[in-house]
């Protein structure tokens, strides 16, 4: 079947940005004239996105393309007895079917350890594990072909209980064993018994990133199969390139990866999903292959947030000063390793929260089960730790007769304090200020007697009686590491070219919605005094930028762009100095001019760079970190950010329904580089944390996802979102190239425990597990 109309060629969303901008158009809001750092610059891809012109990876279309689709295991654990493809090959329109035997290179992949098969060949270890792929002329043909593949399985008893995975007698479900990582932290006096001791066991369900733009890619084979171009929505094109090349047995430079438009990520695009399959089908058929997951398939096709069970005991003085923490943390990694080892380290090293603590005994386990694989999601192990430590802080407060605010202020950490890993906090650490500024935000007005029924809990269901509605208030405060940890050098690269007053920036930084495409031109304008900035396509024709994760791109890729622009500025000053016989050290950029600090000389950057061409590439590396030793000691993290949240909720105690009324927050951001982008990160993160608190959970039944759809996996809508009142605390971070900390993850971390605490406050219930369901409240 042929398409009658070509929708899109391989458009790659190159954006050109200049600074005429909205102040002149709307006449409002703007005081800063140019879109430099600190200005509310607008996204250069905004106009295309609102008109439906922006090419997401799922929008790409090519002549003679075929559709690819994946056959997945229906069993959580089974041995593959046989695979019969013959009936599927007989279907008209099917061009290729591939299985494990068609993988020419490495048969497995993985971000940390390479333990996940491209296709299962002997055992399937989770429901949804890929077994085969087809290429055909139409998505419907693909569906029929998948249905015609006959796989005979010998079904085995799955291991779905993470606690059972810890037991030595439990049979191994993978040659690498069932323990993905064990790490302890032993610090300080192990004998301390506090005057006050509080303990509990907390649990978190499995959360999905639920980006809207489903996994999608298009692969274009070189003639003769010597290489392949892949256009894909991903978070880290160089890591994809490396892993794909190994599986295809091609040199790395023969796998050229270009970023397609990305419809959100939140961690779910860091691992390989359809990358290798799509390239294999393209090479096999010598035709372009388009692959796109369905929503149900997406639930099976990417990693999720780890479910966790955390036992924790706090020892404190009668005054509420924390002396020692004991904890056992178990993270369910699912069938394959992904980033579980790193998620675990984040969990255990953040279990003290943003509070001083001199002694700790922590045992962390990330285990393998036959549940869906878990890996990166916004907050990366710290979300789990924070729910536990913040729930404990409220217990401590009650035991000591203190308010939730007072117990947190008494223990708040500061710059120079030592973590339980022995690492000294060198980052700006305005924990106390985060708490005080959040506390100063006015509370919402009480629920009016004559409130619009639509505004009550239950909304348009009109289910709630006002007398059953109880209001509660709760707190959450968190610490989050920025960048990768434990010796990982996740550097970023950028190239800057200046000619005729125009800057071209090239980097491999994945724009997933966070707004690096607006920040990068702001940096260039600030450093170089230009207005027009062109962003070149994001592809593997430049060095790595690392992953768009770990709240790291503003710091890392921002640092790389800043560095490249500064090198160009040096060249520009030398060029101007030589022509006009001025010491280049006397030159500075003022607005869009180059001026002599001492004399009268002034020339516009446009004039100075006309006819010249400057070209510099810069790699930004963060300071080195260390691996943890046997006792969990070491400078394993680069830097930290902090945030406080206060939640106000209305609870219908009869029906167990919750409505979040207001979230107040003060976040340590270092420096606000773009207030529009910053508030967008804060509000978006809060929505995801709210989801985890009261509605979002992948429900598993013997390894099978019971709710793999947006009908059954509930996401916050406009009606679920409260008013968000945010204060951005600006205390520039000396280590950060632009003074700014990453702001992506902190908003979603402590808002979850804050909402849980508010529901506890309203109901008097213990509620040790999130998401909190109606039955947890009213039964």
């Amino acid at each position, binding site marked *: 079947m042929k398409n009658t109309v070509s929708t899109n060629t391989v458009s790659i969303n190159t954006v050109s940005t200049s600074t005429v901008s909205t102040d002149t158009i709307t006449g409002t809001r703007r005081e800063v004239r140019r879109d430099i750092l600190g200005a509310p610059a607008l996204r250069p891809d905004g106009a295309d996105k*609102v008109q439906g012109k922006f090419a*997401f990876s799922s929008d790409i279309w090519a002549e003679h393309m075929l559709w690819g689709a994946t056959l997945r295991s229906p069993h959580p654990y089974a041995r593959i007895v046989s695979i019969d493809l013959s009936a599927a090959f007989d279907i008209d329109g099917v061009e290729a079917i591939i299985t494990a035997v068609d993988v020419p290179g490495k048969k497995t992949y993985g971000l940390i350890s390479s333990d996940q098969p491209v296709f299962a060949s002997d055992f399937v270890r989770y429901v949804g594990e890929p077994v085969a792929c087809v290429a055909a002329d139409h998505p*419907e*043909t693909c569906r029929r072909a998948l249905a015609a593949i006959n796989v005979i399985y010998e079904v085995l008893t799955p291991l779905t209980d993470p606690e059972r995975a810890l037991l030595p007698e439990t049979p191994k479900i993978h040659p690498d064993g069932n323990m993905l990582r064990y790490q302890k932290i032993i610090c300080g006096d192990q004998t301390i018994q506090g005057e006050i001791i509080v303990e509990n066991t907390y649990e978190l369900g499995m959360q999905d990133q639920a980006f809207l*733009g489903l996994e999608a890619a298009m692969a274009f084979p070189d003639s003769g199969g010597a290489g392949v171009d892949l256009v894909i929505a991903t978070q880290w094109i160089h890591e994809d390139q490396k892993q794909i090349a190994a599986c295809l047995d091609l040199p790395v430079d023969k796998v050229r990866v270009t970023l397609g438009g990305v419809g959100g990520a939140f961690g779910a695009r860091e691992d390989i999903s359809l990358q290798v399959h799509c390239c294999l089908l393209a090479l096999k058929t010598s035709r372009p292959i388009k692959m796109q997951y369905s929503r149900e398939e997406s639930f099976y096709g990417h990693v999720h947030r780890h479910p966790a069970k955390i036992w924790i005991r706090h020892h404190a003085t009668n005054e509420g000063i924390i002396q020692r923490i004991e904890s056992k943390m178990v993270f369910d990694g699912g069938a394959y390793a992904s980033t579980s080892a790193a998620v675990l380290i984040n969990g255990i090293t953040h279990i003290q929260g943003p509070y001083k603590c001199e002694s700790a005994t922590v045992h962390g386990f990330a285990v393998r089960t036959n549940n869906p694989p878990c890996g990166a999601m916004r907050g990366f192990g710290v979300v789990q730790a924070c729910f536990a430590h913040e729930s404990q802080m409220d217990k401590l407060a009650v035991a000591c007769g203190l308010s939730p605010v007072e117990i947190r202020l008494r223990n708040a950490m500061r710059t120079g304090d030592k973590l339980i890993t022995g690492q000294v906090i060198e980052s700006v650490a305005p924990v106390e200020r985060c708490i005080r500024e959040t506390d100063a935000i006015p509370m919402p007005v009480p629920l009016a007697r004559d409130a619009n029924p639509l505004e009550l809990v239950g909304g348009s269901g009109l289910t709630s009686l006002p007398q059953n509605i109880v209001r509660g208030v709760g707190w959450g405060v968190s610490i989050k590491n920025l960048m990768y940890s434990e010796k990982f050098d996740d550097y970023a690269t950028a190239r800057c070219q200046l000619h005729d007053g125009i800057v071209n920036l090239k980097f491999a930084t994945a724009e997933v919605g966070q707004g690096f495409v607006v920040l990068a031109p702001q940096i260039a304008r600030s450093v170089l005094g230009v207005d027009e900035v062109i962003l070149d396509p994001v592809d593997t024709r430049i060095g790595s930028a690392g992953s768009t994760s770990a709240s790291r791109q503003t710091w890392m890729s921002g640092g790389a762009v800043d560095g490249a622009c500064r090198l160009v500025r040096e060249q520009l000053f030398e060029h101007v100095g030589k022509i006009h016989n001025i010491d280049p050290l006397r030159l500075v950029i003022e607005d869009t001019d180059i001026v002599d600090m001492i004399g009268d000389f002034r020339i516009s950057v446009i004039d100075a760079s006309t006819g010249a061409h400057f070209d510099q590439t810069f790699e930004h590396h963060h300071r080195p970190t260390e691996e943890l030793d046997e006792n969990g000691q070491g400078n394993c993290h680069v830097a930290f950010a902090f945030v406080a949240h206060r939640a106000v909720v209305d609870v219908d105690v009869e029906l167990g329904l919750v409505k979040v009324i207001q979230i107040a927050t003060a976040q340590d951001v270092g420096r606000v580089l773009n207030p529009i982008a910053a508030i*967008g990160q804060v509000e*978006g993160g809060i929505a995801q944390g709210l989801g985890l608190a009261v509605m979002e959970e992948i429900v598993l039944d013997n390894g099978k996802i019971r709710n793999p759809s947006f009908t059954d996996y509930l996401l916050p809508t406009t009606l679920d979102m409260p008013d968000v009142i945010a204060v951005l605390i600006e205390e520039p971070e000396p280590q950060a190239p632009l003074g700014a900390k990453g702001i992506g993850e902190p908003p979603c971390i402590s808002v979850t425990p804050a909402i849980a605490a508010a529901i506890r406050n309203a109901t008097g219930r213990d509620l040790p597990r999130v998401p909190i369901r109606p039955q947890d409240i009213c039964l």
Partner: protein
Amino acid sequence: MTPNTEVYQLNVNGKKCEVRDAWIGESLLYVLRERLGLPGAKGACEQGECGSCTVIMDDQAVCSCLVMAATAIDTEISTVEGLSVDGKLTDVQDAFVNEGAVQCGFCTPGLVVAVHNLLDTSPTPTDIEIKEAISGNICRCTGYGRIFEAVRSAAATRQETNK
């Protein structure tokens, strides 16, 4: 695939578009995106929950993933591509860009269509009306705060222009 041999016609953005050689089971979303060169409507849930595929059919906002394309003959369909004239952004589109309502942008075309539909039928919506009207459009990036601002701002601009 054995295609259907019949040809059918859809009226999209004021133009008559012929759909040939199509499998009769295709959704309106698929036909718009893959056959008519209009990828603005997005597929994200495929069951009418997220609103990313919203288009207007005879003045009603519908999820095009739930409409069989072949049943949409004799209706007037407008998509996000049909909103702006000569590349000039509409008031709603302009407000979305200026207020920071766009991040990844995947939900944006559906939201822009839904908000046009809201303001065309209810030019001065209250906050709760706005929330209700776009509660069928899921956004995973923004937390909706800037989207509310964009809708409020577009409604205000429209009021101002219509004075």
